[in-house]
């Protein structure tokens, strides 16, 4: 039973990490895509085109760096959680060697 619970906990952490990474990618795409239109409009004005391009690149870089950090932290937390669960599983292994199925009734 302990093994099944640990497996589920591992799955929950994994799902949370996947959701964070997937969500971060989706939000990054929206932030970059949404900003593209006003930047393109401003970049069409000759006087301010050059500095706007710099700001645009800086903005895209900032968004990418922020989300890369979020994904790195999420991945790191996931790795640590896996390590902790591996340790707990190893320590609890002698106490619960079964696969979760009940032992047959009998003498």
């Amino acid at each position, binding site marked *: *039973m302990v093994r099944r619970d*640990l*497996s*589920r*906990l*591992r*799955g*929950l952490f*994994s*799902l949370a990490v*996947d959701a964070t990474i997937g969500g971060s990618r*989706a939000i990054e*795409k*929206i932030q970059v*895509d*949404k900003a593209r239109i006003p930047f393109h409009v401003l970049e069409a004005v000759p006087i301010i085109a050059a500095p706007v391009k710099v700001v645009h690149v800086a903005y895209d870089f900032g968004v990418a760096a922020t989300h890369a950090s979020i994904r790195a932290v999420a991945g790191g937390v996931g790795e640590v959680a896996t390590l902790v669960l591996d340790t707990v599983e190893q320590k609890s292994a002698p106490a619960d060697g079964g696969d*979760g*199925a*009940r032992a*047959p*009734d009998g003498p």
Partner: protein
Amino acid sequence: MRYDLDLAIGVLNGAIGDYLARRKNGLAIEMTLVADGAPISAKQIDAPNGVVAVFVHGLMSTESVWELDDGETYGSMLERDLAIHPLFVRFNSGLHISDNGEALDRLLEEIAGSAHPREILLIGHSLGGLVIRAATHVAAVGGGRAWLPLVKKAIYVGSPHLGAPLERVGNVIHWGLAKVGAAANEPITELVASLISMRSHGVKDLRFGNLTKQDWEDADPDALLQNRRHPVPLLPEIRHHLVAATLSTDPIAAMFLGDALVPVHSASGRAEPHHRSPSFPSEHLHVLPGKNHLQIAHDRQVYDILRSWCAET
């Protein structure tokens, strides 16, 4: 607490179970027999009368769906009234119905080999009924199964044999949003479309009631209302019993609403040629007015019908 957790995991499996299985996530359920919430092996089955009833739950559900308010289940009542030993299956309802059918085929073969029953009754609620049909089809095509000749009756409770309109609506909404999002280059609309598209293979199979691998293989799962079903014949050796429900007692409203999720014509398998499905015989059909889709999995009136069918020789 554990009961709620198991149910929550069952719901999660129904929603994104194919993803969980693909990622080998520990939350993905593997098909197993359960008793009192814990997995049991086929070797532990004790059916003194030699008759077992295998209960297969529906989408986003667990074996708890069969439980009435007083803690009884159709299984416990059949055991008490007719000495039929109940076996409850728990599985990942987000996988393709055909994949779950293959898993059920293997499980039933294990049961036949370990418990040596003289008769097996198959009872499925909602998607569970389709899994039963997929399993019998796989066994019939594959041949050589010990369990298949033991099955004399299959009972489908609110099973969408001709598909579920709600999933077809989901298909249309996703298709529309994806087209609009791509045409307008609108990232939020595209994101919403991709979130809708994340629903599991099990859910998408309910669009037209896919039963076989050929129904979905090499096909775009999000293609607009594309029925690729291959007709699966009803095995003549098995008596097919059907329970359908209608939310409303008004005949016109009942025709449109069905049991809120499955319309009567789908639950009763009244197929037209375009459904690409055999039509079910109507002599073993019960339509119950004033009941919803989930209710019929744990209802005294439904049990009385089930018991009378199970008692028939």
